[in-house]
């Protein structure tokens, strides 16, 4: 699987990039410093955002099993890390293959939909508090996309 940028360069074999493609490339390059800045902000904020989300989750769902909290923690880290990279490289395919396919299977297996509705709402809240509005808009569409994919799952757990 190649990124949209690589695909564009493959298509431009032995010819100049079209004006539209040049615009795309320009937008990609011009957006880079800002995306890099947001990427770093996410990396620095990760421990706080994730642990605060988990604390709030345990407060809202006091009976939640410690294993599920740990699973949630791993998933939030995966969500944040993959979304950050997808945002930085503007490559949606990273999310599907490395993140959604894996996590959705675990969500189904352990019947985590209810936990996730709460966890994702809390995590969005944390993001909002941790990032400046100008930073938030860079990462939010990616994270929301993953969360929407995971929350649309509705099948019974086989391990419960």
């Amino acid at each position, binding site marked *: 699987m190649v990124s949209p940028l690589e695909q564009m360069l493959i298509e431009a074999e032995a010819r100049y990039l079209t004006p539209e493609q040049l615009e795309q490339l320009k937008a990609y390059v011009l957006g880079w410093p800002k995306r890099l800045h947001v990427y770093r902000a996410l990396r620095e904020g*990760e421990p706080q955002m994730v*642990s605060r989300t988990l604390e709030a989750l345990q407060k809202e769902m006091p009976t939640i099993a410690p294993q599920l909290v740990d699973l949630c923690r791993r998933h939030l880290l995966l969500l944040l890390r993959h979304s950050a990279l997808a945002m930085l490289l503007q490559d949606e395919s990273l999310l599907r293959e*490395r993140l959604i*396919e*894996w996590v959705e299977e*675990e969500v189904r297996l352990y019947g985590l939909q209810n936990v996730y509705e709460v966890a994702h709402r809390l995590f969005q809240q944390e993001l909002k508090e941790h990032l400046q509005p100008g930073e938030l808009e860079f990462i939010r569409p990616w994270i929301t996309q993953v969360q929407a994919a995971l929350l649309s799952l509705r099948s019974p757990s*086989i*391990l419960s």
Partner: protein
Amino acid sequence: MASSAGFDPYTPVLANYYAPSLYLQSDLESGLLESRHGDRLLALPETLLRAIYTGLEYETGQAARLVLRNCGRMWGKEFFRRFAQELSDYYQKPLAELEMGLFLQSLKQAWKTHGWGLIDIDWSYKDQGVLVVSIRNSPFAAATPPHFKRPMGFLEAGLLATWFSQLTGQDLACVQTSSEALGAKSNLFILTAATRLKEAEAWVDAGFSHEQILEKVLQSTP
């Protein structure tokens, strides 16, 4: 995993070992395919698969089934060894200590990434010592020549039998009871102790459905 260790931004959170873009590595110049573990991989063209079915039938007749099953067994043994080693290296613990969910998910992903289809395991009959495995989009069913009027996935049946025998430490056998090649929605395989499946291939030959065969197997004594 200690919670503080999980927050080190340079320590990976272990997840999908078999993600295709990570697992499959190719070198265009040498034409070699390798797994991320460094093991060689082989791409089988459809033509070759078809030729194996028809060539074996031409050369050996009925014995083709046995040959395919034995090839599947050897393949299963090797695949299990590789799978166990890859996962225990990746997660840094022996296969037996992996969580069940993680283990099953890795199996499904491995199956998919190797291009063998979508595998699902039905545990409903586990208390009776029976597993039902379903595989959709199987390349082996897709390559079955149309003149075969019974399920021909002996390669997969052999693979599954050995794989689950190694996993459980018991002598399991496997019979395919429905096939996509014959218009079924998925390829269904029944796995249980070898002694309980002695007549199963004859039942398939006699045209019994998956449900009928499953019923017969469940009625047999474990």
